[in-house]
């Protein structure tokens, strides 16, 4: 009996549980070997891809720069530039190469302006890359559509307006966001027309992005924001309030006063903030009348407004709120009282038995 036969016989004589464990060990060993092999293959494949990507990236960077400096200054496009475009036209038919070309162009167009930026846009059109981006708009996946719109925004393809405007109401938020950014980036304040009929919410992040883009333009002539302040879409109203503040829209005061009765608390608070920024006095009467029925947040905002616009006429109202249960309102009331009538403030100081009031008075007097 040789060693192998002896081992085999010994194995079969083992208890079933031990045999199962040995069998599992064998299976696991094979699985680990397969996984190691697969990981090695995957790593070399990824490294190979990365190497190819770097190679093409370098090649296309050079091609693009050569194209940009190949203009002869006389013709719209030199022969060298034409030859380069024809060469790149072939490359863009391959998805892998196309993505690298787009990445290279994107890197450059974000950082340069002027004639060269126009030349890159021309390159984008002439090589047919624009058609691939337009084709993406017909995709079924939301991320493909969103990336198509983003690309068209980046390369300022105004001709895609009619196609992209359809996506403003797309069920996917990212697609809607990209479509809205496209409209505002390329058509400035006119692009905000989508707000007229917007039914979906405009997220806070989307609002910030839109405002940031708008502030980059030289032309700061804002359209009439009244319809947006009257919108049934609360996020549109909140966005319009931001526009009113940033662009000093004093002529919409009547609409702002109407918004003080809006059903949404956040909108009412935002409105008071804008009125405070405008140092509006017309809203005082309304806000005083409705003070008791307002939320604490609104009351606090109103007192911030009063800190800027309060006068002698508000004295009685201020005195009523010196004993307010909210500390911040109490503090604001005393501060305003000192500003509009020091004598009355001193009277309150002497007569009060409220320890909190005493502390606030001391704080106000020493600061």
């Amino acid at each position, binding site marked *: 009996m040789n060693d192998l036969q002896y081992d085999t016989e010994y194995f079969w004589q083992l208890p079933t549980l031990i045999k199962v464990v040995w069998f599992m060990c064998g299976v696991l060993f094979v699985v680990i070997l397969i996984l190691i092999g697969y990981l090695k293959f995957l790593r070399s494949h990824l490294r190979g891809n990365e190497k190819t990507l770097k190679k093409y990236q370098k090649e296309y960077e050079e091609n693009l720069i050569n194209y940009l400096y190949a203009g002869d200054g006389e013709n719209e496009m030199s022969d060298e530039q034409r030859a380069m475009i024809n060469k790149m036209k072939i490359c863009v038919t391959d998805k892998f190469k196309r993505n690298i070309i787009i990445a*290279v162009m994107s890197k450059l167009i974000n950082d340069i302006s002027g004639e060269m930026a126009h030349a890159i846009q021309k390159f984008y059109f002439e090589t047919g890359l624009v058609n691939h981006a337009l084709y993406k708009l017909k995709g079924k996946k939301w991320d493909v559509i969103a990336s198509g719109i983003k690309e068209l925004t980046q390369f300022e393809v105004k001709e895609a307006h009619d196609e992209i405007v359809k996506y403003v109401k797309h069920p996917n938020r990212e697609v809607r966001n990209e479509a809205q950014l496209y409209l505002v980036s390329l058509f400035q304040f006119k692009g905000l027309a989508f707000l007229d009929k917007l039914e979906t919410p405009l997220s806070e992040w989307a609002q910030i992005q839109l405002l940031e883009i708008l502030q*980059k333009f030289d032309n700061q002539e804002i359209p009439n924001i009244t319809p947006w302040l009257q919108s049934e879409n609360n996020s549109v109203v909140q966005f319009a309030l931001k526009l009113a503040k940033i662009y000093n829209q004093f002529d919409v005061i009547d609409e702002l006063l109407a918004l003080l009765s809006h059903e949404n608390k956040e909108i009412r608070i935002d409105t008071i903030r804008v009125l405070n920024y405008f140092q509006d006095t017309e809203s005082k009467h309304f806000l005083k009348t409705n003070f008791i029925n307002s939320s604490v947040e609104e009351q606090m905002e109103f007192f911030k407004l009063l800190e800027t616009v309060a006068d002698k006429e508000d004295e009685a109202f201020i005195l009523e709120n010196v004993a307010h249960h909210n500390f911040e309102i109490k503090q604001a009331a005393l501060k305003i009282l000192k500003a509009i009538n020091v004598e009355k403030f001193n009277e309150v100081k002497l007569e009060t038995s409220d320890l909190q009031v005493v502390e606030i008075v001391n704080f106000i007097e020493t600061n």
Partner: protein
Amino acid sequence: MSNKKKIVLAEDNSTLSLLLKFRLEKEGYELLIAEDGKKAIELIEEHSPHLILSDIMMPYISGLEVISHVRNKLKMQIPIIVFSAAGQEEMVLKAFNLGANDFMGKPFSPNELVIRVKRLLSF
């Protein structure tokens, strides 16, 4: 030995670096490119350039650290132009406080950059 004026360009966008290299070499300058702040400091110490162009946001060592190193450690008074993106206004102020001479907000025109470089190197 070359009489060309040396410029160190610290920029992590390789395409932009290449574009500026072409443009400035056409104007007769010698460009030394660094893809991060660390490499930029090495090039500055090795070549003592006549001017530095630096992006503010870079890997490893930022443009601000490069300026600080040049002004405080190397005690070099060569002109420095910084590139900044939108929203980096505070960084630009810090760059000026550290000793930068000029700044250009991205996106910028390469032609305008050439004018500024010529102006600073003419003093």
